C-alpha cells in the first residue's frame, strides 16, 4: 500500500490545496497512491470529514499533524483527545522529548520530517545540541527538499539506525505524491491501522518525483 504521509490542505495557513482537488489530480495523473495523510501545521483538524471523497475517489484520506519543536518539525500520526490535552499544538517551540513522550503515551506515532533541512530539520539541531533519545523514525524523502537535504537525511538516518519514510510535503495540488511511503503487503484502513503499520516498521520511502522524461 502506497501512502503520501505528508500533505497540507487549505486548513494550513500556507496550504493552498483543496482536498477534493488532490483526489482529482491523483486520479487524473494516475498516480500510484492508495491515499494520503493531511498533516496540517500546528493543529489537528478534528472537524473535517472526507469519507465522501474516500468513497468517490477510492482513496484513503487520513488526518494527522505537523508540530514544531526545539529540534525542528515533527509529524504526529494518531492524534487523539489525550494527546491534544497534553500538547499545545500552536506552540512553535515544543520540547521534542515532550512531543515524543506524550505521543507514545497516547498511542500516537511521532517522527521528525525533513530532518536534513536547515533550522526546521532535526539533524541541523543534532550538529549543535547532540542527538535526541526516543527518535526512531524520520522522513528521508521530502517533496520540498532541495538537492543535498534528502541525501543528508538518508546518511544521518543510517548513522543513527532510524527507520525511514517519505512524504511530498505538498502545499499545492500538483505536488502531491512526489514522495510517498510503501507498506508492502499491508492493508491500512484507518489512522489506527497506519499507526500500527508504522509501529510495525515494515515500510520504506519512495520517490515519485517527475523526471524530465515524464
Amino acid at each position, binding site marked *: 500500500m502506497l501512502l503520501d504521509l505528508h500533505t497540507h490542505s487549505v486548513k494550513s495557513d500556507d496550504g*493552498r490545496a483543496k482536498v477534493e482537488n488532490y483526489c482529482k489530480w491523483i486520479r487524473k495523473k494516475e498516480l500510484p497512491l492508495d491515499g494520503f495523510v493531511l498533516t496540517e501545521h500546528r493543529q489537528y483538524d478534528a472537524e473535517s470529514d472526507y469519507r465522501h471523497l474516500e468513497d468517490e475517489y477510492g482513496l484513503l484520506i487520513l488526518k494527522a499533524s505537523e508540530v514544531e519543536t526545539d529540534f525542528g518539525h515533527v509529524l504526529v500520526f494518531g492524534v487523539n483527545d489525550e494527546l491534544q490535552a497534553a500538547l499545545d499544538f500552536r506552540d512553535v517551540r515544543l520540547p521534542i522529548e515532550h512531543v515524543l513522550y506524550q505521543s507514545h503515551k497516547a498511542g500516537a506515532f511521532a517522527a521528525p520530517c525533513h530532518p536534513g533541512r536547515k533550522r526546521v530539520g532535526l539533524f541541523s539541531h543534532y550538529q549543535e545540541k547532540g542527538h535526541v533519545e526516543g527518535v526512531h523514525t524520520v522522513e528521508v524523502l521530502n517533496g520540498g527538499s532541495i538537492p543535498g537535504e534528502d541525501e543528508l537525511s538518508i546518511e544521518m538516518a543510517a548513522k543513527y539506525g532510524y527507520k525511514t519514510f517519505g512524504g511530498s510535503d505538498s502545499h499545492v495540488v500538483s505536488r502531491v505524491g512526489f514522495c510517498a511511503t510503501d507498506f508492502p503487503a499491508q492493508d491500512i484502513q484507518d489512522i489506527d491501522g497506519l499507526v500500527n503499520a508504522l509501529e510495525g516498521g515494515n515500510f520504506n520511502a519512495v520517490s515519485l518525483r517527475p523526471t524530465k522524461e515524464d
Partner: protein
Amino acid sequence: MSTIYKFAEVELGDELPNETPDVSMAKVTSFCTSAKHLFERFTDHEAAKKEGFPGAIVPGIMSQGLLAAMIHKWAPGCNIMSIDTVFRGSLLVDSNITMTGAVTDTDDDEMTAELDLSIIAEDGRTGVIGTAKVQFLS
C-alpha cells in the same frame, strides 16, 4: 503545450509551459521604479545584506505580476479572477528562477479553471506558491 484560446482546450492536469523570467537588477529596478516600490532591499545587494538577506530580493508584487504574465502568455484571452500567493522563501535578484503552473480543477458551467502556481529559486527551493482562478469567455 500550445497557447490556450478556448475553455474547451483546457483540461485538468494540464501544465503551463515553464517560464524563466528576467529578474536582473536592471529589470527589478525598472519594476520598482514604475511601481513606486523603491526599497534598497530590492535594488541594492549590499543594502539587502545589511538587512540580513543573502542579496537583493525580488519584490513580492513583482513575483505575483510575473505569475500573472505567465498565465496570460499561456491563455491570452482569459480573465484572472483571483490570484493568491504564499511567499515561502526569498527569490534573489540576478538569479535564475523558474515559474511553473498546472490546471488543478475546471468548471464547465462557469468556464473557469483553477491553477497551481510556483516559483522555484536557483537552489531548487520553492520560493513562492500560489493558486489562481481564471475564466474564459468562450
